[in-house]
């Protein structure tokens, strides 16, 4: 009776064990990278808006404070998207005839808000509040990056839960003095460890067990 398998079958079987383990390791690594990739998180992807509005120009070049437009950032869960009237404060006077600004003028004429594309989209099951973060010393650029250099705003962080938790577990690493909240050039290395801990105490930031409790964010 002829043999069923080729005589190399035993070696193939043995090698396949090693290959299977290697493939498993590679698959795991690929998964862990893909899961955090900008392809899935939308990180670094510039969003095109209905108006060619440049944060770089308004904040970086003109030096307008964040709060001029995002008025409710210190008092509300939402930083606030400015109404068209805020734009028209200036643009009824300057660049008043610019074709780039026609959508803004149209919005003003027709009393219809501009439909901005949302850049930072948190899932509904995560509760987020801007005012508490600002009040406890988290600056704009900590999460949003250097907006003053972005012609079109993009997301600089993954917005994944592990990213939220990295700060909620060690808030002292990310906070800054109240006066520096809207400083786009703030460098986290400017403070010593003692100063950070002092800040954490001054802000009365609660211990990490509270900050990382499920119901702090999932209410």
């Amino acid at each position, binding site marked *: 009776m002829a043999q*069923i*398998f080729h005589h190399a*079958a*035993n070696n193939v*079987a043995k090698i396949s064990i090693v290959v299977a383990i290697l493939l498993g390791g590679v698959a795991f690594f690929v998964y*862990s990278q893909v*899961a*955090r990739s900008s392809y899935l998180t939308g990180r670094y992807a510039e969003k095109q808006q209905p108006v060619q509005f440049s944060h770089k120009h308004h904040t970086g070049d003109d030096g307008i404070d964040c709060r001029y437009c995002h008025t409710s950032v210190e008092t509300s869960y939402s930083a606030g998207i400015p109404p068209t009237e805020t734009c028209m404060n200036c643009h009824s006077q300057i660049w008043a005839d610019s074709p780039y600004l026609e959508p803004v003028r149209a919005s003003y004429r027709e009393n219809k808000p501009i439909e901005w594309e949302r850049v930072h989209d948190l899932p509904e099951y995560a509760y987020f509040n801007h005012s508490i973060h600002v009040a406890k010393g988290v600056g704009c650029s900590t999460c949003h990056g250097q907006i003053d250099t972005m012609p079109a705003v993009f997301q600089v962080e*993954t917005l*994944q*839960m*592990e*990213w*939220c*938790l*990295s700060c909620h577990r060690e808030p002292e690493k990310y906070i800054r003095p109240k006066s520096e909240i809207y400083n786009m050039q703030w460098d986290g290395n400017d403070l010593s460890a003692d100063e950070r801990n002092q800040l954490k105490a001054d802000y009365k930031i609660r211990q990490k067990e509270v900050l990382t409790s499920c119901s702090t964010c999932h209410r």
Partner: protein
Amino acid sequence: MEDVKEIQRRLHPPMVEGDHTFATATDRISDITLKRKTPFGWFIGFGIGFILLQIMMITVTYLVFTGIGIWGTNQPVGWAFPIINFVWWIGIGHAGTLISAILLLLNQKWRTSINRFAEAMTLFAVACAGVYPLLHTGRPWLAYWMFPYPNTMGMWPQFRSPLIWDVFAVSTYATVSLLFWYVGLIPDLATLRDRAKNKYFRIAYGLLSMGWRGSARHWHRYEIAYLLLAGLSTPLVLSVHSIVSLDFSVSQLPGWHATIFPPYFVAGAIFAGFAMVLILCIPLRVWYNLKDFITDTHLIYMGKVMLATGLIVCYGYVMEAFFGWYSAGEFEVFMIKNRIWNGPYWWFYWLLILCNGVSIQFLWFKRFRESAFWLFIISLVVSVGMWLERFVIIVTSLHRDFLPSSWAMYAPTIWDWSMFFGTLGLFVTLIFLFVRFLPVISIFEVRTLLPEANVHGHQEDFEENVLESQRGIKS
């Protein structure tokens, strides 16, 4: 001389009846898969299982598209049929592991002809059990969240929760049981490979037997691997159902929060498992003419194990009631009253006592132990009883807890039942496929029980000893 043979039979009942040689034993078992025409009854049994399996498929499809609201599971009974059936199936699996691992280490020869299908039963029961927690998550495609891996949530599972211990216990159990079963199958798969005439069967069995040639080195390694796996499985017999019981007893709920739970659950698991082994092997040995290998002695031994474990379970029932009374806690006392006579589910409790407590008392009597028919009936009753036990523990504890305002009744929906009968279908289907395609009894291990394997022949010594002692008694 007849006298001596009789005494020997009584002291050491043979585990293989009939005058079998290596060849006839191998033929008898391997022919089931290779030569004999698939009996018509097989198609009927498989067909019934397969139809039930399709009902399960329909249920699962509807469930995944709709959500677990199709079940009767709802507050306050948030853990209803899914966990009742999960615990029931997981428990059934335990006999297989006990037979294969502990009885092997204890050198109990009677395990040999029943271990193979008992282990298969374990695997299939674990598969049926696993379906429930998986689907009860509501989003089974995210079930991998239960495992610790570097996820983007920056979180580990809650290691202080027994539910996560359950994930590890059950997945370890499934893995080790599968390995144990498969390693034990390898020499027999090689036998089938060598005897199969059909080309595809030869390739399939050839692949599965992993190049087994039966050399001394193969056997040497096989024996070590098998012993190691037996050692690994042994703690699992105790740990898996202990951890399942901790799902309940770690909570604060009256009726669950009791220290007796781990041993009580383990005994119940083995009890239910042996009942299922008997339910499977009694028809099997008749239909496939295997009474030579699964002898009456086997059935008697299993009946005794059932009696012993059943009595431990009954002790558990007594202790549960005692704890309730002795705690003098208002809620504990209420729970016991509600469970046993005051609540709407009182008759479940008494049905349970009837099935698990009263029915096994017959096993004290030789007449019932030696009758395959009665063993079969008692095993069926015990299986129902063990299901009722889980129903009583889960539903009567949850449906009336601390706050009367949150009390409610629980009733399963048609989808609960279709899911339960569906898993029965999955189990039956797998069992029938197993019987058809794999050797139901370990061929090479049965061969070691035959007189032919006993090359040194201690028969004369034995007869001498018996005669000696007989003379001693007479004088």
